């Protein structure tokens, strides 16, 4: 179905009755070549690139709820490539390049807005660390500009620069960073996969994974058994439960991360701003709401809603950084379940079971990874070997201690990221 200004006008005149669903609602077939467990951003993009890049279309994506109901529709939509360590650098760089061509590729408006991201720093030591990170980004071929205090003031005049605890020394500016409309990303990939023949099956919870002689043979679901030659587990916050069906324990703990949005306001925050010392970040949605968040609640949870102490902490950080925000009214808050890995970096790998793949450990940064994660998992499933830019996302790195990617430098241990 085509979208155009003319079409919107026409549908408006006829009561919006002409729009049709953009993907099918198929019955599950008894057998597929490939079954993907989880219809979030990563599962959908995996199906899309399997079809588009590798010509594989006998695929089902099984989703226990509805498309877009997981974290892909709950995040704060930041898209960036400002990583530091080999492994993450090339992967997120590749992802940002895919983002930059995504709307053309999907022929779908995902409202990708490269409005620029500024990470603030508040001491000489932090400036040095950010200069080093900026150099790593430039080495990777991405963009980074080290701003001094006056440089930040030009972009963000509304900040409190003279806060006595965290005076602003400057910021690392990533002009190609920004945001995208999260639901549209899920819908765009869903439409793209469906139109290439992939079956998207909603309200279909996987309840078991069938393994015979060390080889995966299919899955059990609430809509009956489905045979498959290859199965990919792409369940984000629920990765632990899904992997348990295959007798696996993962290096993952699930934690709740909260987010907040205010009433719609006129444009006032033009960038994505992050205030790491206060555990706070913010951007303004195209609808006008200020979208912001902070850190994890910091204890394992599947509740998808958070506690008051973290809400209080986030509000305090907001007031510290930009006192003007005190005039805005918070409309709502919500939480999502994060698959936290010990080193804070993800996993895209085979498992010990032949034909069974795992994609997890996205922590709080998996939205920007949606294009490259699907691209690389599709490559792994189709060719049997990892894609170059995801070659370090190994499942066994924790056991061997080789190739850990601890961006924050806090130690490769649970509950530290």
């Amino acid at each position: 179905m085509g979208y155009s200004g003319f079409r919107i006008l026409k549908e408006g005149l006829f009561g919006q009755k002409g729009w049709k669903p953009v993907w099918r609602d198929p019955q599950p077939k008894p057998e597929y070549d490939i079954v993907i467990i989880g219809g979030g951003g990563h599962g959908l993009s995996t199906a899309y690139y399997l079809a588009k890049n590798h010509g594989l279309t006998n695929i089902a994506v099984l989703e226990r709820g509805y498309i877009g109901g997981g974290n892909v529709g709950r995040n704060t939509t930041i898209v960036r490539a400002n990583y530091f360590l080999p492994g993450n650098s090339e992967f997120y760089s590749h992802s940002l390049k895919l983002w930059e061509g995504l709307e053309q590729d999907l022929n779908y408006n995902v409202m990708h807005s490269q409005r620029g991201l500024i990470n603030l720093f508040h001491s000489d030591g932090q400036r040095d660390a950010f200069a080093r990170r900026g150099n790593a980004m430039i080495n990777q071929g991405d963009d980074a500009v080290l701003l001094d205090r006056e440089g930040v003031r030009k972009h963000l005049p509304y900040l409190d620069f003279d806060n006595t605890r965290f005076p602003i020394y400057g910021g690392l500016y990533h002009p190609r960073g920004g945001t995208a409309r999260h639901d549209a990303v899920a819908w765009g990939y869903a439409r793209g996969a469906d139109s290439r023949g992939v079956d998207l099956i909603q309200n279909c919870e996987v309840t078991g994974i069938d393994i015979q002689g060390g080889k995966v043979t299919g899955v059990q679901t609430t809509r009956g058994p489905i045979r498959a030659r290859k199965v990919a587990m792409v369940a984000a916050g629920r990765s632990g439960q899904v992997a348990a069906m295959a007798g696996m324990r993962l290096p993952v703990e699930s934690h709740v991360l909260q987010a907040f949005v205010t009433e719609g306001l006129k444009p006032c925050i033009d960038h994505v701003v992050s205030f790491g010392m206060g555990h706070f970040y913010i951007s303004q949605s195209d609808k006008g709401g200020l979208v912001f968040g902070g850190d994890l609640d910091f204890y394992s949870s599947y509740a998808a809603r958070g506690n008051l102490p973290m809400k209080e902490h986030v509000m305090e950080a907001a007031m510290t950084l930009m006192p003007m925000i005190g005039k805005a009214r918070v409309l709502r808050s919500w939480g999502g379940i994060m698959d936290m890995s010990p080193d804070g970096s993800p996993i895209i790998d085979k498992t010990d079971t032949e034909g069974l793949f795992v994609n997890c450990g996205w922590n709080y940064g998996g939205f920007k990874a949606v294009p490259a994660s699907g691209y690389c998992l599709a490559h792994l499933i189709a060719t049997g070997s990892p894609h170059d830019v995801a070659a370090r996302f190994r499942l066994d790195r924790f056991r061997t201690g080789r190739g850990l990617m601890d961006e924050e430098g806090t130690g490769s241990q649970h509950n530290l990221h």
Partner: protein
Amino acid sequence: MRLTCPLCGERDRREFYYGGDAMALERPAPDAGDVAWNDYVHLRDNPAGATRDLWYHDGGCGTWLVVERDTLTHAIAKVTPASEVAR
């Protein structure tokens, strides 16, 4: 969320520091090998439902506690001093 410390009574979550899964109390022998140590340090059951984890009463009596709670509802079932649980 509130935890009832056996020594101090019912207190706000802000007073406690979270110490992760209570399997931390079952430390393998130093020479147990990398599989056992990987299990201990990295791999988790990560249950959606009943769990046992460690909390430190930072803003109170300074006792490590084993808390039995539900990760889906945040309901607390039982709080025991870790010294009574660990052998």
